[in-house]
């Protein structure tokens, strides 16, 4: 019994550390553009991010958490020695956490998703045995790392091309923006709500029929769009700053839309990344509590809540600083661009979350930004940096795996 408490305690500490790191750093990606473009104040951004990261984690984080917990390793292999799975998951959390700490000190672009998946595959393949890894599932995950930025890029391209056609290239962009932006708000709210209802709500014990789900999503999205439309109508042109085409005011109209997409992005981020921290923790908790390793064990909602709280604490402690720094640097991502990138990325990530695929939110967002760039939307993208970001997982996976193997043998030797 004492041993169990040690395991759960350690796992909780490591898991919460990961969640804290995710909240402190990665959340900025979702909210920084809204702050940079002054669509939200930093306080509002942190509040919105806290609410939607938490909701995302709890409502839609279940599938990916299941994948991390019991989709990568073949849990049946641990049936007769459940403590090995506990050591491995502890080692994975510690390895990913350590690697992320080093990388962030050095300023390297490293994904939490790649670190944790690499770590789990590492301890299982080397510490337990090559066939302890569900390679088919791992293959699918790796494929999703390639497909998710591409999908997000494609969606972003289509969305932004439609914005150019319908609004930016018209003789009176301001009138066109006021007319069409509410529809984009509807689209953003609808996508996230629908995927959440269809894929997420079973985890909190709600089962709705398909028709009810669509109706509910339409209703929620329509009400958000109406509120947005009212806010948009109030926006008046600023004569001093505006030129003939009123693009300055047009961007402020898109700013309203961006509040919605930023919340979607925070939601999507919470739904996918909470698993990186909480998936291994969940595995440790269920095994330690029951002493058995089972595929059927249900994921307790409070574990997801714990992850959500960790992310919010990270956001509250360090998020402010990171959001402010990033917001200053990405002023090129004005609301008309930022919303397209965020909507595309959030849609892609939420669908991945619903499918149980752990993807990299940063990679997906970068893919979406490139999509906007392809539609001639961004003045200057540094392709060297983009290349470095995408190349990072090639190094992250072996390092995460190697560290995890070391920690695994350490725990095997030290822990009871």
């Amino acid at each position, binding site marked *: 019994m004492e041993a169990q408490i040690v395991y759960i305690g350690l796992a909780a500490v490591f898991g919460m550390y990961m969640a804290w790191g995710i909240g402190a750093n990665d959340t900025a990606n979702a909210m*920084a553009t809204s702050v940079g473009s002054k669509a939200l104040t930093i306080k509002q951004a942190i509040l919105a991010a806290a609410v939607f990261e938490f909701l995302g984690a709890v409502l839609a984080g279940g599938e990916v958490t299941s994948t991390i917990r019991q989709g990568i390793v073949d849990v049946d292999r641990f049936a007769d020695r459940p403590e090995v799975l506990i050591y491995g998951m502890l080692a994975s959390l510690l390895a990913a956490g350590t690697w992320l700490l080093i990388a962030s000190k050095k300023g390297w672009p490293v994904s939490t998703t790649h670190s944790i998946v690499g770590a789990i595959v590492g301890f299982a393949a080397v510490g337990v045995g090559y066939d302890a890894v569900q390679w088919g599932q791992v293959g699918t995950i790796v494929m999703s790392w390639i497909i998710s930025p591409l999908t997000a890029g494609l969606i972003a391209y289509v969305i932004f091309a439609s914005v150019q056609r319908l609004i930016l290239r018209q003789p009176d962009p301001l009138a066109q923006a006021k007319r069409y932006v509410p529809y984009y708000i509807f689209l953003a709210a609808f996508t996230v709500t629908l995927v959440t209802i269809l894929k997420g709500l079973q985890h909190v014990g709600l089962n709705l029929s398909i028709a009810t789900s669509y109706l509910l999503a339409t209703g929620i999205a329509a009400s958000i769009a109406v509120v947005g439309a009212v806010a948009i109508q109030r926006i008046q042109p600023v004569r001093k700053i505006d030129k003939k085409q009123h693009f300055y005011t047009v961007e402020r109209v898109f700013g309203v839309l961006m509040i919605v997409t930023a919340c979607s992005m925070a939601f999507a981020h919470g739904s996918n990344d909470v698993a990186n921290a909480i998936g291994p923790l969940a595995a440790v908790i269920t095994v330690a509590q029951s002493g058995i390793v089972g595929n059927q064990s249900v994921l307790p909602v409070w574990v997801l809540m714990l992850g959500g709280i960790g992310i919010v604490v990270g956001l509250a402690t360090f998020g402010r600083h990171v959001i402010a720094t990033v917001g200053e640097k990405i002023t090129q991502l004005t609301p008309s661009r930022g919303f397209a990138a965020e909507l595309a990325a959030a849609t892609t990530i939420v669908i991945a979350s619903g499918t149980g695929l752990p993807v990299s939110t940063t990679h997906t967002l970068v893919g979406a930004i490139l999509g906007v760039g392809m539609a001639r939307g961004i003045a200057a993208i540094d392709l060297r940096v983009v290349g*470095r970001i995408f190349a990072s997982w090639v190094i992250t996976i072996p390092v995460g795996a190697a560290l995890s193997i070391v920690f695994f043998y350490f725990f095997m030797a030290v822990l009871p």
Partner: protein
Amino acid sequence: MANLLANIFGSSPVMPLEKHVDIAYRCTRELVGFFEAAIAGNWDQAKSIRDTIEELEHEADDLKKKIRLHLPKSLFMPVPREDLLELLLVQDKMANRAKDVSGLVLGRKMRIPPEIAVRFLEFVQRCVDAAKQARKSVRELDELFTAGFRGAEVSLVSSMIEELDRIETDTDDLQAELRAALYAVESSLQPVNVMFLYRIIELTGEIADMAERVGRRLELLLSH
């Protein structure tokens, strides 16, 4: 966890380019006061205006170098990097010509013959107008980037460039008249001075030519 998202954005050349054309224009604008002083024979004032012109030209030069430095080849932009650099170059040449012409006049303490003084000032003013219209056109660059170089904003800039062309044609006409007027009185002047007067007219006219080339460069951006 390191946040590299912020770093994927290169520094946008748009606002610096607009700032550069503004400096270049302000540099040429000083020529009006400079020639008024020169015609009045007030060389102290001419000297101080010439200092301002030199200062502005330096400022434009520094900004030009800075913009180039921040436009590495790895940047992915909606328009070719080379075209933006060419635009920058011709903008810079407007300032260069203003410096050249004022330096020459001050160095030789050149007197503009009273017979052509009014016409001469009119010509200078029109060349400065061309630079001003070039500035106005380049100042739409941020709006062009916003609109993605298509649609209504492009028509707006096209009409600005047409106006720029009209002004440049004006300066050509004025230059021809000015040469004719100088030709009519040149026998009463020192031959060396006359040669330099023709040179001054030519250099001043080049400011309008450069302004027109700014328009051509912008047009190239529009056609992408």
